[in-house]
């Protein structure tokens, strides 16, 4: 298998083929995606106004993203008024530098971290490790991945690609526990070890699910309790928040809380939600809260009228579970922190289309992602737009280097399809090519098809030839 750290979005085809060879992965993926899909269906069946909730959430996001500058300023002002320190980071490097500086200024060397996609996006762990301050991941799945030196394969279940036996062996190696593959025993071992980290930690790092402009509140959802530990026990809490996470009002949270857990894990609510507003002098929490507002390519998406919708994503993972491509090949194939349908539109925009042009094409446009999206993002239309941009380029960006043969092929196709005679001629050529076994094995489109399938056999003459000119 391609080592995940060398995975690249544009190597999707190879990485996907590798993934298909891994039976443990494909079996686990199928079980996970089926299970989450069923749970999601059961959970939303209990919500009669589900479609209205989606529509409401979509409108809230559309409104907010259209004037993100306004809401971000309000969020920052209110969070600051409540005692938080707000930092702004233009890109990942700047965000990492800010977090590193906060840790260094407090001589914090024992760091704990709860699950956060944004921090993975910017490689925060690596940046901190370079300064001997690598945080301990405390979500069980993320911790397993960290111990193994791998990358997550699923947004909700990061270690879905590993069996209990593999995790058991990992724990024997790294923690020196007696051999076991019992999930309860493995989780208990993790609890004990991570408790020691929590007890000693001087700085906790988390992500943010929602930031409320009106109050400066950040909301963090989870099931394990590690995010509560991370945001309560250490003296300093640093929350890294993508700028698209802001929503206008406290009351808007209710709709998103109804949508997110049901879509992600099929729970009515995840076990814990922490709604943190600034610091709590005299309370039980940390002395300091730092919120790092991360741009890293988001502002550019926000001002793109067509693609802006991408930022409405609330990271539930439902589109991954529903996507037949993801179900088959999993997250590593995408070579990005953000896999699946949402990753296929987000990654090329964050990293640049040239860097990840393969991803918008890694979809059959079946539309299952759009159906399950709790904020009704029209992912297929956005995939189509990115494909168009790959071919045409955009102002200020050259077209992506696609296969020359493809450009020629579509040029020819367009010419042939503009006249019935040419069309018949081309169709006849294709029929001949198809009947020649050597061609079907060697001629690119046919040979790709016949790698895994038989060629279609035409049912006699073409319909147009049966009906030439005739109306009935």
């Amino acid at each position, binding site marked *: 298998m391609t080592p995940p750290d060398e995975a690249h979005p544009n190597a999707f085809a190879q990485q996907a083929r590798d993934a298909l060879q891994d039976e443990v992965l494909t079996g686990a993926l199928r079980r996970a995606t089926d299970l989450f899909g069923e749970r999601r269906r059961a959970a939303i069946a209990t919500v009669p106004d589900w479609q209205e909730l989606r529509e409401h959430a979509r409108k809230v996001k559309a409104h907010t993203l259209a004037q993100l500058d306004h809401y971000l300023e309000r969020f920052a002002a209110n969070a600051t008024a409540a005692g938080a320190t707000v930092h702004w980071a233009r890109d990942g490097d700047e965000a990492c530098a800010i977090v590193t500086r906060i840790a260094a200024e407090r001589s914090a060397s024992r760091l704990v971290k709860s699950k956060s996609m944004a921090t993975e996006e910017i490689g925060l762990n690596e940046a901190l490790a370079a300064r001997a301050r690598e945080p301990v991941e405390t979500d069980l799945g993320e911790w397993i991945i960290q111990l193994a030196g791998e990358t997550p394969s699923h947004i909700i279940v990061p270690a879905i690609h590993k069996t209990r036996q593999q995790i058991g062996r990992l724990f024997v190696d790294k923690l020196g526990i007696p051999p076991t593959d019992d999930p309860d025993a493995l989780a208990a071992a993790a609890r004990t070890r991570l408790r020691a980290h929590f007890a000693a930690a001087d700085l906790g790092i988390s992500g943010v699910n929602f930031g409320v402009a009106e109050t400066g509140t950040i909301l963090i959802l989870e099931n394990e*309790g590690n995010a*509560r530990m991370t945001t309560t026990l250490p003296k300093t809490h640093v929350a890294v928040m993508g700028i698209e996470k802001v929503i206008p009002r406290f009351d808007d949270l209710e709709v998103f809380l109804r949508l997110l857990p049901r879509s992600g894990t099929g729970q009515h609510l995840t076990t814990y939600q922490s709604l943190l507003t600034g610091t709590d002098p005299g*309370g039980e929490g940390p002395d300091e809260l730092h919120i790092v507002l991360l741009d890293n390519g988001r502002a550019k998406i926000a001002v793109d009228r067509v693609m802006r919708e991408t930022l409405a994503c609330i990271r539930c993972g439902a589109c991954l579970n529903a996507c037949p491509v993801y179900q088959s090949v999993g997250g590593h194939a995408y070579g990005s922190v953000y896999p699946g349908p949402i990753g296929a539109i987000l990654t090329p925009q964050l990293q640049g289309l040239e860097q990840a042009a393969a991803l918008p094409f890694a979809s059959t446009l079946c539309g299952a992602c759009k159906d399950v999206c709790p904020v009704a993002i029209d992912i297929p239309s956005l995939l189509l737009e990115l494909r168009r941009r790959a071919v045409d380029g955009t102002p200020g960006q050259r077209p992506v280097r696609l296969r020359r043969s493809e450009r020629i092929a579509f040029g020819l196709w367009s010419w042939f399809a503009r006249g019935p005679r040419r069309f018949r001629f081309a169709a006849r050529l294709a029929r001949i090519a198809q009947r020649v076994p050597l061609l079907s094995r060697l001629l690119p489109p046919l040979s790709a098809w016949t790698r895994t399938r038989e060629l279609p056999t035409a049912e006699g003459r073409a319909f147009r030839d049966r009906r030439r000119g005739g109306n009935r």
Partner: protein
Amino acid sequence: MTSARDEILQRLRGGRSTGPCSAPPPLPTPRLRAHLSQPIAREQLVATFRGQLAQVGARAEVVARADLAARVAALLTDAEAHNIACSDAPLVRDALASLPASIETLPPDAARERLLACDTGISSAQWAVAETGTLVLASAHERHRLCSLLPDRYLALVPMSRLVGHLGDVFSRLHEPSASPTSRAITFVTGPSRTADIELQLVVGVHGPKDVAVLLVDDL
């Protein structure tokens, strides 16, 4: 040199100096589920709450205010509790009145390492939500962030009058300007700490409590 803040805001304005470049789509009025529903009978609320808790592997029972201390003592004795992390709520103080002397209680400001070693935590909750089986802990009212999180077992006391139907009921109350000081930390708790990170098999108590029980205190 422009600050990161100015530069990001500038990028978001896409070149315009201030204000939106075109009218943004309107913000829909908040949609709190509570507003859509009728008042719910108490028995129905309790049944829904218990049903939801059962689904997530927790439980609730109704106890009369007069019987609270005896019931709590019995529960803790049965559970062989030794050291209890307590919140500073008056209801908790009352509930622990009949505790055997062998059980040690610790206040919220006890040393961290001692709180981490407690086997049981006990607090009240500001609200409980029937539709999801959720406890709402608001820091302005009580210090219960740690005692509800660190021990293996968590016992929450909820005045019956604080049991509401929907999440929206809580949101509207949390946000009322007339409400007591806005809580800096609001925690929603729905059942025991859980994970399915190893082969999707459910494991409870991976970080927080593995056992969650609620006493609905009949305060009428």
